[in-house]
C-alpha cells in the first residue's frame, strides 16, 4: 500500500484507525463515573497528543536515525508558533498559510543552526544546539519583546489583538483559527448512554497532518536517504571512506526534523492562537528528547507513544487532587480511606512530577528499547500464553 511493505502498511493502518477513533478510545469511562478522571478524550489533550507526536516523529528522524542528539529542537517549535501567530495577526486566521509559513521559517532557522552545529559531533553538537536554543529563548522571552520592537510579546506570549490588521479577514469567518471557515474549536459532542465523546475539527486536522507526516517518516526510514542516516549513526568513518560525506545527509535530517518541529509549532498555534516563549526553553527541548527515548529511539511509533505518555501525565495526573482521591476511595472505611489517600497523595496532583520521574527510571531500567519494547514483550507474552493454553488443552484432551 502506498509503496510500503506489508508490515509498515499494517502499522500505518493501525495508527490511522487509532487516531480516527481516538475520541472513543481515549474516553473509555462514562462521563459521570469516578474513573472519568482518566479520560483523555477531550479536544485540547487529543490535539496535544497529536501535535507533540508530530514533534517527536520529526525529532526521531534526526536523533533516532543519525544519533545526533539535539537539545535545541524546541526553538523550532517556538519559531513555528511565532510565525503562525504573525500570519494570524497580519493576514488571516486561515490555518493553511500559517502552518505553511511556520514550516518554512522553522526550516530556514534549522538550516542555519544545523549548518553551524553539525561542524561538531557527539556531546559537543548537543551543547551547540542547546546554546543556540537558549539564546533564542532569551531573545524571545525578553530582548525581542521590548516595547520598541515587540516581535514575541515576551512572557505573555504573542497573540492576536482586536486592532491587528488581519488583511484578509472577512466578517462571517470565525474569529479564531479556521480551515476555510471551519473553526478549529468546532466540536461535536456525541452522547451514548453514560458516555460522552467529543469530535473536534482541530484534532482531526492535526490527526490528518500527523498521518501524512507519519507516512512520510516511514518512507524516510525505508528510503536510501534513511539508510544513509542510519549509516551515519552506525559508522561515520566507513561512510567517509565510502565516498559519502555525512554532513549533507545529517544537515538534511536536521532540517527535516526542524521542519517537523515547525509544523508542530504551527499547528499548536492553530489550535490555540498564542505563542509563548516557554515552549522554546531547554526543558521543552529536553521533553522531546525524553519522549523519543521513552517511546523507543529509532522506532517508527515509539516517539508518538512517548509523547502521549508524557502529555497524559502532565494533563491527567496533575488534576487528581485530594478531593478526587477521597471521592474514589469513599467506599473504604474512614481510617482506611484516609490512609490510602495519604499513600497515593504524593504521587498525584502536585506530585505528578514524582510519578513521571519514577516511570522514566522504571522504563529505562526494565525496557531498554522504550515503550515499544514493552509492547513487543507484551505481544510475545500474550502469544506464548495463548500457545501454552492451547498446549494445555492439547494435553488435557487426550486424558479425557
Amino acid at each position: 500500500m502506498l509503496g510500503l511493505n506489508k508490515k509498515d502498511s499494517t502499522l500505518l493502518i493501525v495508527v490511522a484507525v487509532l487516531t480516527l477513533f481516538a475520541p472513543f478510545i481515549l474516553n473509555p469511562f462514562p462521563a459521570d463515573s469516578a474513573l472519568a478522571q482518566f479520560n483523555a478524550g477531550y479536544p485540547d489533550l487529543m490535539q496535544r497528543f497529536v501535535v507533540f507526536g508530530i514533534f517527536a516523529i520529526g525529532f526521531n528522524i534526526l536523533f533516532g536515525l543519525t544519533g545526533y542528539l539535539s537539545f535545541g529542537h524546541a526553538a523550532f517549535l517556538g519559531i513555528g508558533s511565532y510565525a503562525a501567530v504573525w500570519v494570524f495577526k497580519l493576514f488571516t486566521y486561515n490555518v493553511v498559510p500559517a502552518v505553511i509559513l511556520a514550516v518554512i521559517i522553522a526550516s530556514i532557522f534549522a538550516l542555519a543552526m544545523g549548518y553551524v552545529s553539525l561542524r561538531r559531533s557527539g556531546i559537543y553538537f548537543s551543547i551547540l544546539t542547546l546554546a543556540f536554543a537558549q539564546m533564542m529563548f532569551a531573545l524571545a522571552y525578553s530582548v525581542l519583546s521590548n516595547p520598541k520592537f515587540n516581535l514575541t510579546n515576551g512572557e505573555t506570549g504573542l497573540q492576536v489583538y482586536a486592532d491587528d490588521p488581519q488583511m484578509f479577514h472577512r466578517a462571517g469567518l470565525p474569529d479564531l483559527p479556521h480551515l476555510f471557515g471551519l473553526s478549529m474549536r468546532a466540536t461535536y459532542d456525541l452522547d451514548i448512554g453514560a458516555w460522552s465523546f467529543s469530535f473536534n475539527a482541530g484534532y482531526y486536522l492535526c490527526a490528518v497532518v500527523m498521518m501524512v507526516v507519519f507516512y512520510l517518516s516511514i518512507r524516510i526510514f525505508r528510503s536510501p536517504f534513511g539508510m544513509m542516516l542510519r549509516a551515519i549513526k552506525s559508522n561515520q568513518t566507513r561512510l567517509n571512506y565510502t565516498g559519502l560525506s555525512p554532513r549533507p545527509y545529517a544537515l538534511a535530517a536536521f532540517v527535516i526534523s526542524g521542519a517537523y518541529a515547525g509544523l508542530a509549532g504551527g499547528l499548536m498555534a492553530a489550535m490555540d492562537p498564542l505563542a509563548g516563549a516557554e515552549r522554546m526553553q531547554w526543558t521543552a527541548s529536553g521533553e522531546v528528547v525524553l519522549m523519543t527515548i521513552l517511546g523507543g529511539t529509532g522506532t517508527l511509533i515509539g516517539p508518538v507513544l512517548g509523547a502521549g505518555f508524557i502529555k497524559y501525565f502532565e494533563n491527567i495526573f496533575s488534576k487528581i487532587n485530594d478531593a478526587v482521591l477521597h471521592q474514589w476511595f469513599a467506599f473504604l472505611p474512614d481510617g482506611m480511606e484516609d490512609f490510602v489517600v495519604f499513600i497515593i497523595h504524593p504521587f498525584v496532583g502536585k506530585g505528578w512530577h514524582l510519578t513521571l520521574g519514577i516511570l522514566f527510571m522504571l522504563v529505562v531500567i526494565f525496557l531498554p528499547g522504550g515503550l515499544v519494547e514493552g509492547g513487543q514483550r507484551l505481544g510475545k507474552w500474550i502469544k506464548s500464553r495463548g500457545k501454552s493454553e492451547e498446549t494445555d488443552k492439547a494435553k488435557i484432551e487426550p486424558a479425557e
Partner: protein
Amino acid sequence: MGILEVKDVSKRFGGLKALSDVNLSVAENTVHAIIGPNGAGKSTLLNCFVGKLIPDTGSVMFDGQSVLGRKPYEINQMGISRVFQTPEIFGDLTVMENMMIPVFAKRDGHFQMNAIGDMMKEKDIVEAAEAMLVDMNMADKRHMHAASMSRGDKRRLEIGMCLAQEPRLLLLDEPTAGMARADTNNTIDLLKEIKDQRDITIAIIEHDMHVVFSLAERITVLAQGTPLVEDTPQNIKGHPKVREAYLGETA
C-alpha cells in the same frame, strides 16, 4: 609512472619525525606491500593517502591528480578504497544494506537526497549489491546484522564493500591483524581471488610476513619513517638491511 606516486613526503608530530622524504610508486594492477616494524610510519603514510593526514612537505598523486587537501570522501570518489585494521562496517545495518551503501555512493556521488524512494526498489542497486554478496560468498547472511558476524566475515564484508565501488586502488591496513589462522588464510585466498579476477591495484600494509609473501608482487620496507628498500618478495627475503631493521641483527 605508477597509479600512486608519493614524492618527498615528510610528516612531523611535534618533535617526532614520523615520515621523512618518503618516495614511493605503486604500479597499476600490482599488489604492493609496505612493511616495517612497529613505529616505522606505515599507518601515518597510509593516512596521508586517504586524506586523514596532510603531510608537511611532498606530494601524493593518484592517477596524475593530487590527493592532498581533499576530504576522505572526495579521495574515495577518485577511486581509492580503504580497508581498516579493525573492520569498519555499519554494525547496526544488515549485511545487504552494508553492501548497498557503496553501490549508492558509486552511482550517486557523495550526496543525493532520495528521501521517499524505497531503497529495496532501486533495482540496479539491489542487483549490484546482491551480485557482490554472491561474489563474497555471503549471500546467505544478507539479513544478518553486520555487528553480529565473526571477525572474518566482517573483514570479508568490508573488502566486499570496498570492491563494490570498483576502486582503482584498494588500500589494506593490516587486513589480518588479530585474526585466527583459519580466518587469515581465508582472507589471503579472498585477496588472491580478487587480484586474479579484477583490474585492481592493491596496496597492503602488513605485519604478518606470511600474508605479505603470499600476496605481494612488490615490497617496500619502511623503517623509522624512511623507505629502506623496494624490491620483489624474493629479493626482500634475504636482504640484510631488512633483517637488521626487523630482527635487530647486524649484517
